[in-house]
Structures are given as structure tokens and as C-alpha cells.
């Protein structure tokens, strides 16, 4: 395995609330190399998004972060605001869950595709546009010149997510963080976007931190997986290991509750088979 491009150690994120202070992310560590996909799975609220935002240093002001985050060897937690702005986008890209709201509705696709290049690479408008069009071609968008002239509302959800990915790719960052990139998409479109991510990994050697709550997605795309629960990583390892032989009870529970077509079709009979223990027992 290559040297880790991104390494996170002992990361915690705390919030001070009326009810006292609590750690939404509680001392997690992981590493991500180029050319691999690390999936972060876990239930809602387990701290997956906060982890990714910590890496970008885009946490909400109310959050307090501790720990070290190294990107390509640099500890970004000590960087000045301006220096961090140079890291963002250039060395680490991010795409978000909601393709519908993650693009600025009043700016053209061209503008949003090229601003990273112009900012980090100091490119001129035409050069940047050429590069952007190439990136759009890369993510499989037909008629990229046309799309450049359009505005987000004129694109479908799948197209927007591709644009988001393409925009992140223009700068060829070592790592791409994808926070539930397909949750808002239809399965058919999801499949295409996931294919695209796998292709990026193999072809361009990007490291991808894929955040998801879908075991099926993990199984199909990730190389390694880290299972998060209540701010902690409860289990991690290669996908094959973890999914075939879950060690932690939480992971086992996740696996058990996960419905896959194959398993469903196997067990079909009269009444739908129980997915959980009888009601009396879950009442605890």
C-alpha cells in the first residue's frame, strides 16, 4: 500500500450545548492512500459528515476540533486560514450529498467549473475552460460545451453530481471526499456515479473517502471500510474482511438489517420474514 496521503489521528469534534458539552466525533484515526476507496459507514448522526468537514476545516463555528490531520504530510490543523484556503480544492477536493443545492444557482456551470483553476493554478479564462471541458468529458457528460453555458437548474440531479465531481477533478487533488454522493439520486443514476468514482480511482489514482450508510454501496465500491458509531470507529478493515466476518455486534446488526434483493428473494414465503428479534425484546 502506498504511503497515506491523508492521515487523521485522534480526531475529536465537540459541541457545547445547553445540555453540556459532547463529542460528536470522539478520537478517531484513519488513513487514506492514493488509489484506494475508504468507505465510512454508520448510522445517521454518527459523525461521518463532521469527520469530513474537519478534514476540510469547514466545521461550523460552534464546533471545536482536536487531533491532527495530515494531508500529504502537512498538518493542516495548524495552517492559517489563508494557507488552508490554498490546500482546499487543490490538494483535497470534496463533493457533497445534495447535488441540487451544492451548486450556486445564479452562477453558470462554466464559472463554477473554472474558478478553482483560476484561483489555484492562476489560469486564464480560456485555458481554464478548456481544462473544465476536458473534465466534463472525463465524467461522461455529453455536450460539455453546452453544459458549460448552462445553469444548475437546467441539469438533472445525476448531471449535477457529475459536474460537482468534474469540478473537483479539474485540480487533480490527491484525495476526494464524497459525503453520501448518491443518497439523493435514483439507484440507476447512483450506479453510474459509483462507476465514475471507481473509474477515477483506478484511472487517475485518486484516493477517495466515500461516506455512505449503504452497506451495498460499500460492498460494491470500497476497498477498505471504517464503521462509525456514536463518534467512534468501532471496526475497520478491508471490505472483504469486515463484511464477510463482522467482528463488532453493531456491524453485524447493520449487515443483518440490510436488505439485498438476493437475500430477500431467497427467503420469500407467506408472511415477510422477520428482520429483527420479536417485538418484546427490542423494547429495552
Amino acid at each position, binding site marked *: 500500500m502506498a504511503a497515506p496521503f491523508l492521515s487523521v489521528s485522534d480526531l475529536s469534534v465537540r459541541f457545547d450545548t445547553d445540555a453540556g458539552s459532547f463529542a460528536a466525533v470522539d478520537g478517531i484515526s484513519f488513513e487514506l492512500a492514493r488509489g484506494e476507496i475508504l468507505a465510512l459507514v454508520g448510522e445517521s448522526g454518527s459523525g461521518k459528515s463532521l469527520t469530513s468537514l474537519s478534514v476540510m476545516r469547514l466545521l461550523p463555528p460552534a464546533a*471545536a*476540533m*482536536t487531533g491532527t490531520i495530515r494531508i500529504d504530510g502537512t*498538518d493542516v490543523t495548524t495552517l492559517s486560514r489563508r494557507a488552508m484556503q490554498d490546500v482546499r480544492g487543490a490538494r483535497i477536493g470534496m463533493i457533497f450529498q445534495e447535488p441540487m443545492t451544492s451548486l450556486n444557482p445564479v452562477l453558470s456551470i462554466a464559472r463554477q467549473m473554472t474558478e478553482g483553476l483560476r484561483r489555484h493554478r492562476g489560469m486564464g479564462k480560456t485555458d481554464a475552460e478548456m481544462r473544465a471541458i476536458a473534465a466534463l468529458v472525463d465524467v461522461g457528460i455529453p455536450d460539455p460545451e453546452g453544459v458549460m453555458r448552462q445553469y444548475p437548474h437546467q441539469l438533472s440531479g445525476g448531471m449535477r453530481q457529475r459536474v460537482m465531481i468534474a469540478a473537483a477533478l479539474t485540480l487533480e487533488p490527491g484525495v476526494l471526499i464524497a459525503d453520501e454522493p448518491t*443518497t*439523493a439520486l435514483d439507484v440507476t443514476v447512483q450506479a453510474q456515479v459509483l462507476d465514475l468514482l471507481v473509474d477515477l480511482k483506478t484511472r487517475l489514482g485518486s484516493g477517495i473517502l466515500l461516506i455512505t450508510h449503504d452497506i451495498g454501496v460499500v460492498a460494491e465500491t470500497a476497498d477498505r471500510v471504517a464503521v462509525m458509531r456514536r463518534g467512534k470507529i468501532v471496526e475497520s478493515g478491508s471490505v472483504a474482511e469486515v463484511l464477510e466476518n463482522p467482528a463488532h455486534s453493531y456491524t453485524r446488526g447493520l449487515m443483518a438489517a440490510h436488505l439485498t434483493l438476493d437475500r430477500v428473494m431467497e427467503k420469500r414465503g407467506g408472511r415477510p420474514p422477520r428482520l429483527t428479534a420479536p417485538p418484546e425484546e427490542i423494547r429495552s
Partner: protein
Amino acid sequence: MNAPVRRRRRRLPLNVLLGLGLATIVVAVAVLAPVIAPFDPMRMAAGPRLAAPSLAHLFGTDEFGRDLFSRVVRGAHLSLGIGLAAVVAGLAVGGLIGLVAAFAGRLVEAVLLRVIDLLYSFPDTLIALALVAFLGPGLVNATIAIAVSLVPFYARVAYSLAVAERAKPYVEAARLAGIGSGRLVRVHVMPNIGQSLIVMATLGFSSAILSAAGLSFLGLGVQPPSPEWGAILASGRNYITKAPWILIFPGLAICMTVLAFNLLGDSLRDLADPRRTAPQRAGA
């Protein structure tokens, strides 16, 4: 290195405190007016005519030798009374119209909405002015006029709040329970929009007080000898060079009161804004 923890203090912001403080003072003065005022606000020759502020007459005296301090204090009573009455009446009528428009069927909605929008496009001060011009000046007419001028605003607010609520699944669920529109609005919708409506009402309150003063200033509102602030200003305005205190103190009183309720309304609105209370849940 650890990022510095910026603690969010749970103290009320300055503008809320200022608003609350000033509003409390004004309301206290209004309620306690008879106790606070050293003189009968109507009594002529309580002191020399047009006397400058002194210990005997804190705010000086007016052209009839009435004690200005007593008049201003007493005016708080009137101004707040007008504001309150106008807002309550305007809110009741406007709110009802807005709710009816939102819940009484498509035809009613279309017609009412047209009317509301139309009236809403007229400046409220102009509506109030037109009404007193027709009804004639006086306390009651001015209050009615201001109340009416607030109706389109409240109707609009109530309507948009109700429409936002109408589309929510809980309202649809209540509909499925088979209850009638009346109960639906009363039991299910009102409690949910009441708070926002009241917040908007506080904003109307300050504009009602300003309108009242404006009407009096044009000679169309409360009439002398009533010590309504606008009326004091109107009848004292020509002493602006000779006895400026007749203008300064009631003017400051208006400013302070309106400022208080504006700040209060603004901060209430800010506090009631769900966006303030951070993301409660992410993902779908």
C-alpha cells in the same frame, strides 16, 4: 495543536437586552403613568408658559403651561394603547383573512389573495391616511385606520405562514383524520403559526405607534389636548426655535419606544427562526 475553543455564551445578545430593557421601561411608564406624572397632564398653568426644563418641570412646560413630563408620560399610555389596539384588531382580522384564504378552498383563495395582494401594494401609511381623511380625525378613528392599514400585512403574513403549514404532512395527516377545516386550523395549524404571527405582530406594533404619531402630526390623528406624542409634536412644532423641548422630549419618547419594539420584534424573529437552532438532523 488544538484549535481554540470558541465558547458560545448563552447570554442574550445586546440588541435583545436593549430591546427588552427599553420596552420594559416604556410599558412600565405607560402602566404607571398616573403614579409617575407629577401633574395632571391636562392642567393648564401648572407652571409658567413655555418654561425650559427644570427640576419643577423635568421636560419643561408647553404653551399652556402644562407640565410636559406629565404629558409625555401620559402619552406612553395612549401611544401604547393605540399600538396595542391596532395590532390586536389588525392581527385578528388580517390573521383570519389569511387563514381563510389558505384553508377555505381554491376559489376563495384566489379571490382573497388578489384582494390582499392589491391592498398590500398600497403603502400602509397611505391607507391609514385615506381612512382618517374620510372618517375624520380622533383617537378611535386613528386607531381603526391604523388597524385597517395593518390588515393586508397580517393577512399576507398569516396566509404565507398558513400555506407553508398547509403543505406539511402533519396537516395532511390531520385532514385524513377526517376533521373539518375549522378544527384543522384551530387545533393543528394555529398553534404552529401562532408564535410566528405574534413575532410579526410585535413588528407591526412599532409601525403602528409611528403611524399614529404621523397621523397626529398631520393633524389627522389624536387631537389636542390629548397628550399623544404625535399630537404634542404637532401642536408644539412651531415652538421649535422658541421652546425646542416641546419637540425634543416627545420625539425621543417615540424614538425610544419604536426602537424598543423594533429591536424586540427583530430579535424575537431571529430567535424564532429555526435556522438559528443549528442542524438538528442531517441526511435523509
